[in-house]
């Protein structure tokens, strides 16, 4: 079962829930894998003492324009949705703007003169780590200065689900755009982490609309409950969206988190709460599959 931990708003506690949930699944004896899909800012693995096992580079298509063969017809420039081909026929200028290129290859389809040679560029990596008990972790990472996170998320999940684990926890990127959707579509169940504030509600609504549009099963964990107002609760009730659990706003939890420690390993109450969350998610997973 693939479980995505996601939220529309950043900083609501996706990584907190992912790491503590992973630990709980494991301590309850389930074969579980933790995968950091937040490739623009991967940080789930900071909570574990790990050694790197291996790294696979992720590459993306790039055209190389052969100026001797180019007739400056401009068709590649026209085909490019992202305006990544800088083309000034009056000055016989044509070049690729690497940071605008999405690697879609349309230019290569457009060119009838063989002036576009296929090539690729490194945009990130998928890495495998292990702890002292030889337990494996997977992390996707976008290379600094690169913008295309989707191919890396795809590759990260592909590698992760090929490993023999019963439960795969996918720590998603924040937001409701492509990185989130890419992680959600590969999941059987999505845990939306929301905080009970106006911003939290606004972004939760967008997450819910997105998940409904792709027909995914989900539940909500309200993190830092006790803060904000009751609007998030009203919204969930009106729309019949299940609350998996409420994690109270607690300085103690925040302190352990800031020290890179797992709250479930130090606070008995939090440990019990996560065990309940774990059981609810598993129950949900068995009822859908």
């Amino acid at each position, binding site marked *: 079962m693939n479980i995505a931990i996601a939220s529309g708003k950043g900083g609501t506690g996706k990584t907190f829930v992912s790491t503590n949930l992973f630990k709980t699944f494991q301590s309850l004896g389930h074969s579980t894998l933790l995968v950091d899909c937040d490739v623009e800012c991967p940080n789930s693995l900071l909570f574990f003492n790990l050694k790197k096992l291996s790294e696979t580079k992720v590459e993306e298509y790039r055209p190389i324009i052969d100026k001797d063969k180019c007739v400056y017809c401009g068709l590649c420039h026209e085909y490019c949705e992202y305006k990544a081909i*800088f083309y000034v026929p009056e*000055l016989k200028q044509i070049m690729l703007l690497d940071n605008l290129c999405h690697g879609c290859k349309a230019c290569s389809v457009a060119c009838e003169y063989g002036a576009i040679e296929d090539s690729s560029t490194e945009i990130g990596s998928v890495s495998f780590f292990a702890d002292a008990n030889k337990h494996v972790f997977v992390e996707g990472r976008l290379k600094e200065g690169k913008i295309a996170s989707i191919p890396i998320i795809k590759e990260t999940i592909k590698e992760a689900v090929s490993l023999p684990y019963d439960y795969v926890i996918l720590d998603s990127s924040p937001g409701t755009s492509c990185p989130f959707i890419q992680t959600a579509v590969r999941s059987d169940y999505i845990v939306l982490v929301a905080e009970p504030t106006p911003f939290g509600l606004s972004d939760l609504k967008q997450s819910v609309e997105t998940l409904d549009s792709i027909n995914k099963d989900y539940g909500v964990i309200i993190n830092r409950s006790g803060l904000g107002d009751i609007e998030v609760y009203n919204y969930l009730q009106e729309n019949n969206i299940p609350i998996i659990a409420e994690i109270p706003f607690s300085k103690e939890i925040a302190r352990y988190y800031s020290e890179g420690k797992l709250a479930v390993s130090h606070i008995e109450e939090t440990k019990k709460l996560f065990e309940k969350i774990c059981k609810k998610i598993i129950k949900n997973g068995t009822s859908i599959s």
Partner: protein
Amino acid sequence: MKVAITSRSNSMDSLLDPRFGRCAYFAIHDTETKETEFVKNPNMDVNEGAGPSAVKFIASYKVEKAVAGEFGFKIKSLMNQVNIQMIVIQEEKTIKEIVDMLNK
């Protein structure tokens, strides 16, 4: 010599548009004939690549200089590529005032 000036509207009394790639109009001024033509920036609202598209657009008018309130970081190397000198003016000035400065 032709100069492209970013403009908020299409008359000589318009103010300089501070943005380069997403300006409303380009005033293309010819310092020899003293004529100024206003052309709408076709890439004002594109999602991505407004700056490079604007460089392409003004380069097709064979301008040698471009005046704007600022130029984005993706632009500078492209402007060198097409030999267009960048001039930054940060005060509020009309196109007429800038044209007078260019013809001094």
